[in-house]
């Protein structure tokens, strides 16, 4: 019999971490597979999460592929399904299907410097790459992580950042001036220009709000990064996740299958419909 691509597996919420608060709060969910039918994934891939009766949402798998016994998802409260997740309790059972999408070609980047630039919840899709790169630290050159949030309270993965500092150069920033904030104040693209990482033998990976991505890519260009050296993800509205329902379609690509990871060079050849 054919695999039923629309039938989710059952996942169990094993942990809930409040990352940020406010109108668009972010929570991180640890999801286990009580039936032992979990799947492997690669950095950058996503899964369709659902709460029965509320609907499905495509969410990036935020944990590293090296972590096998659970998957982690950081979900920003946006609408119907994401709100249902924010109302969920530990132990709740959910639907999960995947993994979907392509991956960051991490193996192709061996020996190169890696620059990660994230903003807001946009850190989630690139977090597994960061985690994996750090876990395989010796395979890569210099690792720099830029991350910016509105205020220090809006910073995700606070504890993990502390640990990360041992293996990577962490450049945090907040948009709004704050008393006692030790690091950069200003937008991420500006921080990037300020620190000016070298493009030589480097790969830049960015994800965040569209407006941030736009300026980050502009600035990377100014810093001398070639289009092929820049990677990002695009997150069009998705329903099926399996290249059929049509709404994530950009040019000839169904992003859920061909994306969400694109090099800037590839993206430039597609229509600007994302």
């Amino acid at each position, binding site marked *: 019999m054919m695999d039923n691509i629309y039938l989710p597996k059952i996942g169990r919420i094993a942990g809930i971490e409040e990352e940020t608060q406010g109108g668009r709060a972010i929570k991180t969910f640890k999801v286990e597979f009580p039936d032992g039918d979990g799947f492997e994934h690669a950095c950058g891939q996503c899964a369709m999460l659902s709460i029965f*009766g509320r609907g499905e949402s495509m969410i990036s798998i935020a944990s590293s592929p090296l972590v096998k016994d659970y998957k982690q998802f950081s979900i920003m409260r946006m609408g119907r399904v994401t709100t249902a997740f924010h109302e969920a309790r530990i132990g709740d*059972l959910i639907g999960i299907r995947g993994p979907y999408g392509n991956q960051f070609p991490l193996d192709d980047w061996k020996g190169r410097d890696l620059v990660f630039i994230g903003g807001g919840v946009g850190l989630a899709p690139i977090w597994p790459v960061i985690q994996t790169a750090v876990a395989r630290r010796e395979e890569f050159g210099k690792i720099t992580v830029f991350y910016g949030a509105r205020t220090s309270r809006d910073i995700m993965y606070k504890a993990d950042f502390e640990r990360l500092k041992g293996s990577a150069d962490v450049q945090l920033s907040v948009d709004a001036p704050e008393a006692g904030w030790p690091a950069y104040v200003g937008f991420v693209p500006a921080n990037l220009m300020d620190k000016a990482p070298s493009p030589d033998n480097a790969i830049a990976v960015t994800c965040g709000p569209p407006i941030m991505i736009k300026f980050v890519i502009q600035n990377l260009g100014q810093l001398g990064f070639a289009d092929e050296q820049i990677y990002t993800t695009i997150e069009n509205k998705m329903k099926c996740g399996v290249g059929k329902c*049509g709404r994530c379609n950009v040019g000839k690509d169904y992003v859920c*299958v061909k994306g969400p990871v694109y090099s800037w060079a590839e993206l430039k050849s597609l229509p600007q419909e994302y």
Partner: protein
Amino acid sequence: MEKILAKEKLRDWVASLQGCEVHGPAFADAVWNYAKAEGDIDLRHTNTVGSVKAFAFPQREVFFRFEHKRGERPSLVPTLPEPRPTVVFGVRPCDGRGMPRNDTVFSKEFKDPYYWARRDKLILVGLACIEPHSPNCFCQAAGGSPCSEEGLDILMTDLGDRYHVRGVTAKGIEVMERGRDAFKEASGGDQAAVAKAHEAACKEPQRTFGDLVAIPDAIRRNFEAPLWDEMARHCIGCGICTFLCPTCHCFDINDEVSSPGKGERVRTWDNCQFPDFTLHTSGHNPRDNLGMRLRQRVSHKFLYFVENHQTQQCTGCGRCISECPVGIDIAAVLERVSQS
């Protein structure tokens, strides 16, 4: 296999198909559409309003039923259809050509079990178009023909008092076998008559637009041109064009709830002409105007699908032109694009 079926014998053939669901065109409510056939089938139809795609890709498909009480394990009951063999009569060649295109979509990367559960049981009996059915037919311009067998299991041709019936696929031949008593062997004269009829049919004037092969480039060239906005100016975004299209396949998935935690996950047709099709939850909409949506519809059919699958995703049935409430005309759009 080629046979001759006297018109009054159609009934017998249909009667032989016991155990199958038989559908055929019917004129009701002032429109032609497919309906379950009881006894006779009226094959005097112009093209049906709805396309044949709905037999494999119905407008509403329940994926599974769920029931989920807090603290309990959700029960998920998949509802894969188990249809009987379904024979559809009177399928026009344009609709026939639509099916292989849909097959591609529902197979590539991930195979869609719901589509295929129905599709595998579907037998399409085509009827060649001896004359065009609306001033908006353009199957030839779209790379097909009024007598195309592509996608059909059987092709019938009206020879006045009788039909010429050709079995195209094994499935089709089997269906003909079941009604073998109704058929006569086709004579050489019959074959000549069919060839002549087909030749004549192909000469009937139809809508045209520039060179099909040049169109992808023309679209690329005009991607940013203002012509899309101009052509789409009066579009009302109703999506009739895509709902009726034999190859449009976009859909939506929703949980329909009957009581808290209990309900069905349902697939319903959706389409790229609806304003919220691509609307992100944030409010950002990558295709937020009519021009972009028209461009998407046309590009998907004549550029992207060609890039991915080396053929157009339009078969020239002309429904989207005839049924568009405000006269938006894909042939005219293509013509303008080719010429700009």
